[in-house]
């Protein structure tokens, strides 16, 4: 009897034919994600102008070229044009400043593909989100260029060249409200994307539409983005600047790269846990680290590092959270 159970546990059970072939291929999924990102990227180009367009184009070309070159050198099948390198390049460009010198963007893009993706074994093998590794490498290499933002006008005609989170970190919340002319104006600016920041992270509404499109197409689960954003909201509300429950969760949920990070980076199929329960743990962890860095850390924004840090523990989460095998004990 026990031998039978053992056999049932170790053997992979395969049902009999016929099978349904899934419509989704890597390439199709990747192009859908690119499509979901497109509105926010186009908005970034319109809002920040030519430098943003140059950075996006350079980043994508560098990523595809790096992928092509590495696959040539590794003598594996060339899949540089399947949309995945395109996606890495686009995502990287969307989370850096529009004022970034393009050659630095290209280096970051190449680092993302060569070091973060192909050194680990290529598509599906990487431990960390490639675009975020590229961003982290750029942040460490050229911190000044990475934190030089465009000069924009706020609704009350105040000229600023800092991001909302940067103003919050250095000058405080009241200064932030003053710059944008009140709380509702601030929320409106964040929601519509009329604020400083990385190329593609500003327009909350378009990013959410893109994210919902992916949820509808069943490419991502709603759990990761919703739980991650909610965790940040709750924590920043509780640990406010003037004691408990004085924070501004709405601002924190829309500011910085949280929306794009939660919908498009944390949900990366390769680097997030497989099970839904695992994904929720992952999202809570990422939200907690983001809040910690924003409220107590040296950097104004922490989405990139929080997702990279949670990528580290993804294999552990998958090891601990295993779906129960049907027919075995709880």
């Amino acid at each position: 009897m026990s031998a039978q159970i053992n056999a049932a546990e170790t053997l992979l059970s395969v049902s009999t034919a016929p099978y349904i072939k899934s419509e989704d291929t890597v390439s199709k999924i990747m192009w859908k994600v690119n499509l979901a990102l497109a509105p926010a990227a186009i908005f970034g180009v319109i809002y920040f102008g030519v430098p943003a367009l140059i950075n996006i184009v350079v980043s994508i070309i560098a990523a595809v070229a790096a992928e092509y070159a590495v696959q040539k050198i590794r003598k594996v099948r060339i899949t540089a044009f399947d949309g995945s390198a395109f996606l890495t390049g686009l995502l990287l460009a969307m989370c850096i400043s529009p004022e970034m010198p393009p050659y630095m963007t290209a280096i970051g893009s190449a680092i993302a593909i060569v070091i973060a993706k192909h050194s680990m074994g290529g598509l599906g093998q990487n431990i960390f989100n490639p675009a975020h590794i590229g961003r982290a490498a750029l942040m460490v290499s050229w911190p000044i260029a990475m934190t030089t933002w465009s000069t924009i006008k706020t609704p009350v005609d105040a000229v600023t060249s800092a991001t909302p989170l940067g103003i919050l970190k250095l000058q405080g919340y009241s200064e932030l409200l003053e710059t944008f002319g009140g709380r509702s104006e601030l929320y409106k600016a964040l929601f519509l994307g009329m604020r400083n920041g990385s190329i593609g992270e500003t327009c909350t509404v378009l990013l959410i539409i893109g994210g919902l499109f992916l949820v509808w197409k069943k490419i991502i689960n709603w759990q990761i983005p919703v739980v991650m954003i909610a965790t940040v909201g709750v924590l920043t509300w509780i640990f406010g600047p003037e004691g408990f429950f004085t924070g501004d969760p709405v601002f924190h949920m829309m500011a910085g790269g949280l929306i794009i990070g939660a919908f498009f980076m944390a949900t990366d199929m390769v680097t997030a846990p497989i099970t839904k329960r695992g994904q929720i743990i992952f999202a809570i962890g990422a939200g907690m680290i983001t809040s910690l860095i924003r409220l107590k850390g040296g950097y104004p924004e922490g989405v990139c590092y929080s997702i990279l840090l949670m990528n580290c523990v993804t294999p552990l989460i998958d090891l601990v959270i295993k779906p129960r095998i049907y027919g075995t004990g709880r």
Partner: protein
Amino acid sequence: MRNLWNIYKKGLIDENPIFVLALSLCPALAVTTSVVNAFTMGLSVMFVITANNVSVSLIRNLVNPKVRVPVYITSIATIVTFVELVLEAFAPLLYKELGIYLALVVVFAIILARAEVFASKNKVIPSFFDGLGMGSGFTLAMVIIGVIRELLGSGTILGHTILGAWYNPALIMILPPGAFLLIGYMIGGLKVYEAKKAKKLREVDAQ
């Protein structure tokens, strides 16, 4: 003579302390931010490893195996103290730059490893050449890493500006992650080279 040359040579590439044995990575990460620092550290370690190999080899038949490690460490510590005092007296600036890492030479894995693996089992002259070879390999590796890191991380070599004002130094290269990446890729490159060499040898054998 040829034998001694072989003992010397193996430390350079085939058993390079950093790239092949992967011992003493701590100094390779910490003090290779500039060529001068890397070279000084390399020479210091070369001196310590050679002198220690000689002294361990001399007393190898007198030491009870049970207490050999404390004995070796005492010998290394004596030599390191000597190097430290010399550097402090004649190159105080470098001494300051290297800081704690100079004192840490006492516990570098590579030095104890050579005493244990080679000097305690061989005569004085081979031990001398083993230390010299390992030290040279260590220095070579340190200088190579130092050149690349200083060039990319500060745009200079030995303090002279090589890459002009147009180059915006990539700070990652003078921070620990840059060193980890660089050493990782260099070890990887060496492995590819070795695999190719071994394949060629097999093909020659097959014919």
